[in-house]
């Protein structure tokens, strides 16, 4: 859609489109959309700033069929075009934040962040459940409304509303319950009507309420049950549904009342505006960086972790990143230490070990502790606990050992608890603090809380409690609590040349942004690594990765632009990694990039992540040029590629099962070492004997260039178990060295074969594993022996980064190869096929 005609305009107004968008051309508009469910709802509303009113002027509703990423921007583009409005008229973006299908919500939120960030406009998130309720209100439903949204896996997001002539009033916070529990709740509370998309699946369950409680529930028979429900109600008219609440029976509302609509979204937003909880003109308060989806639950990996550590100790997986202070969810084995610290700092109101232990494993409780790594083991130096009740986090405890105060530990703990509480559906937090403890009150004021009142004689010694309240700690959401690394080689006043391209990379666990100019210079290259959040699990947890990308993307891009001293309006194109990688992670980058490129009306460039790694060699050697054989070895890939020319590649062979990085991680996990496994194992291996254990060299003689790592991984794990079973002490350095040598032997043999096969005179490395020193040495030897030129990217460019995506994007821009607004993310993509 954007493709060719955009190219000319993009080149024509290079660097000259920086006029500030003005609202003089027309009235301010709100762009509204929601893709939390199986439908895409999109609308445009005129904003009356004085009256705080919104008027829907255009809307569209379409089945998403799991493809909202491909359809959302085209629909928005169409709507705006049809009504003859321009992008500059958009004063704010209103986006459904769920709860709902995680991917759907993420697409809406990432797109909204892209549009709002690029236009520098507020982003107001609205509950998708509110939108359903307000649509019902607009259709004349009155009384008590129960909205049930499908949460999948036998669960429902329930919400209660009171609908009167004036408005739809929300009566309960976001949460998730089993379908049967929602049904029991409905039977108890006797709603006038039930709406929401969970009815598609659980219609029969809820239809019992429709028949009224007096009647004995009959067995539904053949015709008209199950799927037939929707059909049975096709004839239900609006008048019929408006006449509700006559006694105990509830009306199951038909299809039109199931998914959020543009009108519902607008009314919910307008209501929030009237009440003061939303403001479409307040950019600072509704900065796109702050908006987050409503999840109501943690990722499965985190939930399982909490259940496990409530009973036993945490796995000994140090982050391997930082030797100092580590925060982690509180585990049972740490409870005695916490209780000891508690009695030291809390005096008469200290909780006992059993009281603390009893908290763990409860779904609505969140406990974190801060540990100091010492040679003799970990020592608890702080802890914090909270309880999520009805959309609010009640802080139960925050304690830090006196010797460790004034180092930001309490704030860090509070931030971790806030993060989890937000994921569980809370927005605000409250706590009690001793009236005499001015230091603590000052601290809470500093994190944005304010005093609400006093509870007299609250503590057992008779002291009053000061009640404080505020929003959840939000500071971390800007870059999702990640450290930003950056490489920036350019001075502020250097002359920059068009085109200017912002490149975004979110294919795995790093959120990265880079800006490149027409000379091929990287004006900025920033990476926010999530490694700390995955380390405890011994590998990347896709659901956590997706959530962190959503939190970080807007801030990381802003940082990338700021370090390059440019703004969105200076850009000539936006590039993004579209494949391969974790789909849930890629989707965030693609949706954001599309939203931003569309908002700026500049081309979108899709880049294959693997091609980025090939281009990264330009950073190691400016004169680098194909033909060359490239070894790409990372946590997700293990392959040999023949680069015939830029853009012309042949995959010579790749792994048939695990990737090398994955094998390093799994072996490290089996040895009880940290994550990521690569650096830990290579450090250990330096001290070990590579020939101590003869691990298998899989496919060494297969006669082709394919790899297999699964067998080696299993052999190492089996060896460890055998040694443990006979009571032998494990020689970690020897195991690490022998494992690493088995990997290297195969890599080198296949590399030699690839060089002979292609006759290439240049060999290069790419991917995170290319940082392994022993592997680099082995390649140096191989290439010296064969008189082949060896190109290795600098260590900092071996891992995932956006700089390499930007390098590819610049070539694409010059070739005029752009993606349309219907672009999507893909888990797999072959390097051999041009795109």
């Amino acid at each position: 859609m954007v493709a060719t005609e955009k190219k000319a305009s993009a080149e024509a107004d290079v660097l000259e489109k920086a006029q500030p968008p003005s609202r003089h051309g027309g009235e301010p508009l709100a762009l509204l959309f929601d893709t939390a469910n199986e439908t895409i709802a999109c609308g445009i509303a005129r904003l009356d700033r004085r009256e705080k009113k919104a008027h829907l002027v255009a809307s569209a509703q379409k089945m998403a069929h799991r493809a909202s990423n491909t359809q959302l921007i085209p629909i928005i583009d169409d709507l705006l075009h049809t009504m003859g409005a321009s992008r500059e008229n958009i004063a704010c973006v209103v986006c459904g934040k769920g709860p709902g299908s995680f991917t759907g919500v993420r697409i809406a939120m990432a797109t909204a962040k892209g549009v709002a960030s690029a236009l520098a406009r507020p982003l107001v998130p609205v509950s998708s459940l509110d939108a359903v309720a307000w649509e019902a209100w607009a259709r004349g439903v009155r009384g008590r409304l129960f909205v049930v949204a499908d949460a999948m896996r036998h669960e429902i997001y329930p919400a209660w509303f009171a609908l009167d002539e004036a408005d739809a009033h929300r009566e309960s916070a976001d949460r998730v319950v089993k379908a049967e529990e929602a049904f029991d709740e409905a039977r108890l509370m006797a709603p006038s009507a039930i709406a929401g998309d969970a009815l598609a699946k659980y219609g029969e369950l809820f239809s019992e309420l429709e028949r009224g409680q007096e009647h004995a529930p009959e067995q539904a028979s053949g015709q008209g049950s199950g799927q037939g429900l929707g059909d049975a109600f096709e004839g239900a008219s609006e008048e019929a549904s408006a006449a509700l609440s006559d006694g105990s029976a509830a009306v199951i509302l038909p299809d039109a009342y199931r998914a959020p609509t543009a009108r519902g979204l607008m009314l919910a937003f307008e209501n929030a505006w009237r009440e003061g909880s939303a403001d479409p003109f307040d950019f600072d308060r509704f900065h796109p960086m702050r908006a987050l989806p409503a999840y109501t639950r943690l990722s499965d990996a985190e939930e399982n972790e909490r259940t496990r550590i409530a009973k036993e100790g945490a796995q000994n997986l140090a982050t391997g990143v930082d030797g100092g202070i580590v925060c982690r969810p509180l585990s049972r084995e740490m409870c005695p230490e916490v209780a000891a610290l508690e009695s030291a700092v809390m005096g008469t109101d200290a909780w006992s070990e059993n009281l603390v232990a009893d908290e763990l494993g409860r779904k609505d409780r969140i406990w974190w502790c801060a540990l100091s790594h010492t040679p003799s083991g970990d020592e608890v130096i702080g802890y914090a606990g909270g309880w999520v009740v009805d959309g609010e986090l009640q802080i139960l405890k925050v304690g830090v050992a006196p010797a460790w105060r004034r180092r930001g530990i309490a704030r860090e703990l509070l931030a971790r608890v806030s993060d989890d509480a937000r994921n569980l559906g809370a927005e605000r937090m409250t706590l009690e603090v001793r009236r005499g403890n001015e230091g603590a009150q000052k601290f809470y004021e500093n994190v944005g809380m304010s005093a609400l009142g006093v509870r007299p004689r609250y503590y057992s010694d008779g002291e009053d409690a000061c009640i404080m309240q505020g929003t959840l700690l939000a500071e971390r959401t800007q870059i999702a609590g990640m450290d930003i690394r950056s490489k920036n080689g350019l001075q502020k006043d250097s002359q920059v040349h068009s085109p200017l391209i912002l490149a975004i990379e979110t294919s795995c666990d790093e959120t990265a942004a880079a800006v490149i100019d027409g000379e091929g210079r990287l004006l900025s290259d920033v990476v926010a690594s999530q490694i700390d959040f995955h380390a405890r699990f011994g590998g990347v947890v896709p659901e956590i990765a997706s959530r962190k990308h959503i939190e970080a993307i807007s801030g990381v891009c802003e940082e990338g632009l700021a370090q390059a001293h440019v703004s969105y309006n200076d850009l000539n194109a936006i590039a993004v990694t579209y494949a391969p990688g974790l789909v849930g992670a890629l989707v965030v980058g693609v949706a954001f990039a599309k939203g931003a490129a569309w908002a700026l009306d500049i081309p979108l460039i899709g880049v294959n992540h693997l091609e980025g790694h090939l281009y990264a060699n330009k950073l190691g050697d400016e004169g680098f040029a194909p033909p060359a054989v490239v070894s790409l070895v990372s946590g997700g890939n293990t392959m040999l590629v023949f680069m015939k020319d830029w853009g012309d590649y042949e995959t010579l062979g790749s792994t048939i099962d695990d990737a090398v990085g994955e094998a390093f991680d799994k072996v490290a996990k089996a040895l009880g070492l940290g994550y990521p496994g690569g650096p830990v194992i290579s450090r250990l291996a330096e001290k070990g004997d590579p020939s101590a254990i003869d691990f298998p060299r899989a496919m060494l003689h297969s006669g082709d260039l394919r790899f297999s790592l699964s067998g080696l991984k299993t052999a190492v794990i089996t060896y460890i178990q055998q040694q443990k079973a006979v009571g032998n002490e494990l020689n970690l350095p020897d195991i690490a060295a022998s494992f690493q040598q088995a990997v290297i032997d195969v890599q080198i043999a296949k590399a030699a074969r690839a060089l002979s096969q292609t006759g290439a005179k240049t060999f290069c490395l790419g991917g995170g594993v290319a940082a392994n020193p022993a592997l680099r040495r082995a390649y140096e030897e191989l290439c010296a022996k064969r008189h082949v030129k060896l190109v290795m990217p600098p260590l900092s460019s071996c891992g995932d980064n956006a700089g390499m995506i930007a390098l590819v994007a610049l070539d694409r821009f010059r070739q005029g190869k752009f993606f349309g607004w219907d672009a999507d993310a893909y888990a797999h993509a072959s390097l051999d096929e041009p795109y």
Partner: protein
Amino acid sequence: MGSGLCYTRTTNSPDGTKQLAATLAPYVHAGDVIVLDGDLGAGKTQFVQGFAHAFGVLEQIVSPTFNLLLTYRGERFPLYHFDLYRLEEAAQLEDIGFYETIDADGVTFIEWGSRFADAMPYSYLRITLNVPEEGKRQVSVRSVGDRARQLLCVWANDSKSRLMKSSGAE
């Protein structure tokens, strides 16, 4: 949890199993889930092949053991084919997009679904393939939940399926 009703049929060849599967194709709705149980080699993938052919899938159906999920374009809506044999723990289901897929816009076949019984949807058809003797396959079908019960009724009513009501014993 199932409705108690069980239908069975014994097929004498892979083609017979495929033919049985083909008779199910007209009746499925988007969102339907079919869980396939049976030992390695019992014919689970064959069943999906027979279904897919009648469902208008043009591509060759292969076992998703390594990929975990393969997606095909059917005439009416997509066909999703899971194989959970390689999956280590239920927590990984979220990682592979399992829940969003089975609740979406297509028909989903799940091999080795019983390994993660708690993760199966609210309503599904459960098909078990046994090998009573060399070359023969005993196909037993049960339903869990309302929608699957309805699906099983219409399927069993199709005389071409030749499914027989049985006592319900495994």
